[in-house]
């Protein structure tokens, strides 16, 4: 282990190499291009490939292809590019393709302010693709978290055979911080489980035991079928309600039943708290300070920073906040993740604190809104 000063974007790039990234495809977009550029220089040194494609659609479809060629694969993008990638993310969900998308949020909608920050896309990151299932979403608020959650994102993607969204933002992307860099030998790296059946008996969508099927890839003799249609365990088209039910519920359960294992958060003063400030990503930096400020003023405030946004660990979050009277959900948007939390914290007052700022909303803004409710 060693320490370096890195931005969130470079932390993502470095962590992806440690995680075993072997293929990156991308298209330039602010504020993610430096992930791409860093990898273009560094990844070939580790035998990996970095290719620029003609657009984001080609990039994400290439990432899907690379993953089926056994390579850990990633792309990075921002709002307009992520919107273009959603059709292929839906493909990755139904074909159970491990891959990571680093989604560095900027100010939207549409072109918005490309160089500046926001958290407008938190619901899009998991509800954006057609098909109504869940993609795991992790949100860093510091370069160190960007590093650690990137490793985690690759591990989840391989373990659960799923696309994973690493949801960063323009502030985290370009803020420098001290990052503990771990060598590959120091990090737990998960690789997809490989089939143990004879070549001719392999069924690419058969979970055997559990919910996640072992994954063979191209060129190994398994004659795999990557199938975007509703399919049975062999990958054969199965336009029947029973097949659809079986596939949908398995795809849903493999993600949602892992919500406890995937859950990651950090907190301040949670043991002794009446007023909880919940946030994520760069806004959490202000929220932590706001909690301290309120404490200094005698309010029993605490802060809960969520690093796993989806799947939502409902019981876990509910339990963490069980002794709290009031929950404030602080976000740099019109109040989006609040919609999720109010649904699972039914017996508590949940208040939305939507603060729109091209950078991080200031702690005093957070305190100001909370004050009105106290």
């Amino acid at each position: 282990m060693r320490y370096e000063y890195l931005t969130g974007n470079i932390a993502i790039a470095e962590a992806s190499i440690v995680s075993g990234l072997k293929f990156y495809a991308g298209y330039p977009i602010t504020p993610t291009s430096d992930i791409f550029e860093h990898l273009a220089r560094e990844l070939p040194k580790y035998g990996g490939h970095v290719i620029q494609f003609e657009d984001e659609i080609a990039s994400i479809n290439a990432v899907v292809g690379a993953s089926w060629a056994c390579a850990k694969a990633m792309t990075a993008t921002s709002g307009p590019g992520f919107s273009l990638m959603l059709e292929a993310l839906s493909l990755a969900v139904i074909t159970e393709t491990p891959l990571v998308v680093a989604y560095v949020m900027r100010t939207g909608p549409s072109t918005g302010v490309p160089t500046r920050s926001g958290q407008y896309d938190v619901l899009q990151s998991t509800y954006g693709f057609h098909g109504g299932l869940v993609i795991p979403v992790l949100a860093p608020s510091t370069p160190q978290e960007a590093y650690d959650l990137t490793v985690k994102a690759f591990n989840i993607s391989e373990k659960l055979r799923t696309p994973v969204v690493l949801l960063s933002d323009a502030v985290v992307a370009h803020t420098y911080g001290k990052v503990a860099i771990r060598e590959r030998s120091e990090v737990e790296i998960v690789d997809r489980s490989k089939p143990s059946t004879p070549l001719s008996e392999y069924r690419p969508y058969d979970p055997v035991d559990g919910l996640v099927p072992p994954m063979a890839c191209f060129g190994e003799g398994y004659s795999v079928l990557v199938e975007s249609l509703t399919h049975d365990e062999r990958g054969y088209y199965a336009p029947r309600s029973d097949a659809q039910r079986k596939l949908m519920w398995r795809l849903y359960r493999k993600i949602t039943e892992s919500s406890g294992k995937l859950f990651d958060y950090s907190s301040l003063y949670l043991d002794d708290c009446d007023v909880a400030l919940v946030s994520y990503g760069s806004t959490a930096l202000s929220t932590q300070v706001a909690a301290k400020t309120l404490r200094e003023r005698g309010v029993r405030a605490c802060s809960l920073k969520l690093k796993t946004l989806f799947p939502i660990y409902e019981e876990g979050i509910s339990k963490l906040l069980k002794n709290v009277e009031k929950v404030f959900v602080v976000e740099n948007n019109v109040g989006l993740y609040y919609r999720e939390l109010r649904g699972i914290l039914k017996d508590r007052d949940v208040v939305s604190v939507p603060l729109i700022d091209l950078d991080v909303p200031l702690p005093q803004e957070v305190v100001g809104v909370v004050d009105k409710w106290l």
Partner: protein
Amino acid sequence: MAVTHPLDPYLRVDRIPTMWCPGCGLGIALGAILRAIDRRIEEGLLKKENIAFVGGIGCTARMTLYPYFDSAHVIHGRAIPFAIAVKVVKPEMKMVIVGGDGDIAAIGGNHLLHALKRNADLLVIMVNNMTYGMTGGQLAPTTPRGLYTTTTPYGNPERELNVIKLAAALGANYVARSSITHPQLLERTIYKALAKRGLAFVEVLSTCPEIFGRHIGLRNPVDLYMELKKKVTVKTNPSIEESDYDWGRGFVIGEFVDRDEPGFLDTYREYISKSFGGGAV
């Protein structure tokens, strides 16, 4: 399971019969492709486990469902970037893209354009039935001008896209037009294309009696087949000008381009290995 046909080892025989309508030209095309592959495997140029079919959406893309190779039936128009990535990661693979005119040249047009520009190491087989068959007969970029389709009920006002000309202008290593009315020639074309580095593009004129036949008044599969056959002229080394796409005047089939420039993989690896002494890749 008794082997009853010489191509059975290359087929998921439990999925036969195919989903294609009676009289569809796709069966002829698939047969020719598999025979060409068989010859290349017999010769030792290809290995069965290193062949992959990739298709988007449409009747032709469903050709990925039947061959007993690695296969991907992905999303509409996006087979090419998927395949490029597989090839970059595993250069030993032979990537065969199968798609209709809509999949490859309408929604997939930009990926074809850039694959051609890169001379990406792919065999792209575009089976052209001149309509959207699977969705019921809408306008395709290859639909003859003036034809009535379900989305151009007053006649197609657009010029046809001549994909041969596009492929030639952008520098593919191999550009040929063939036809299911000439299965042996088609097989030889695919056979040759399978040995090329860089991008090999083969347009296969085909028959969709159910849909295109309805538009054109030739719903009987044999009638449509004979009509297409009449329209096809075989030429040796035709010029690009002779590739003109015109249902009225007929089509020249043959090899329009056959060159051997470095493929994308060659130059990509050359650039990387220049910097890393070949060690990294």
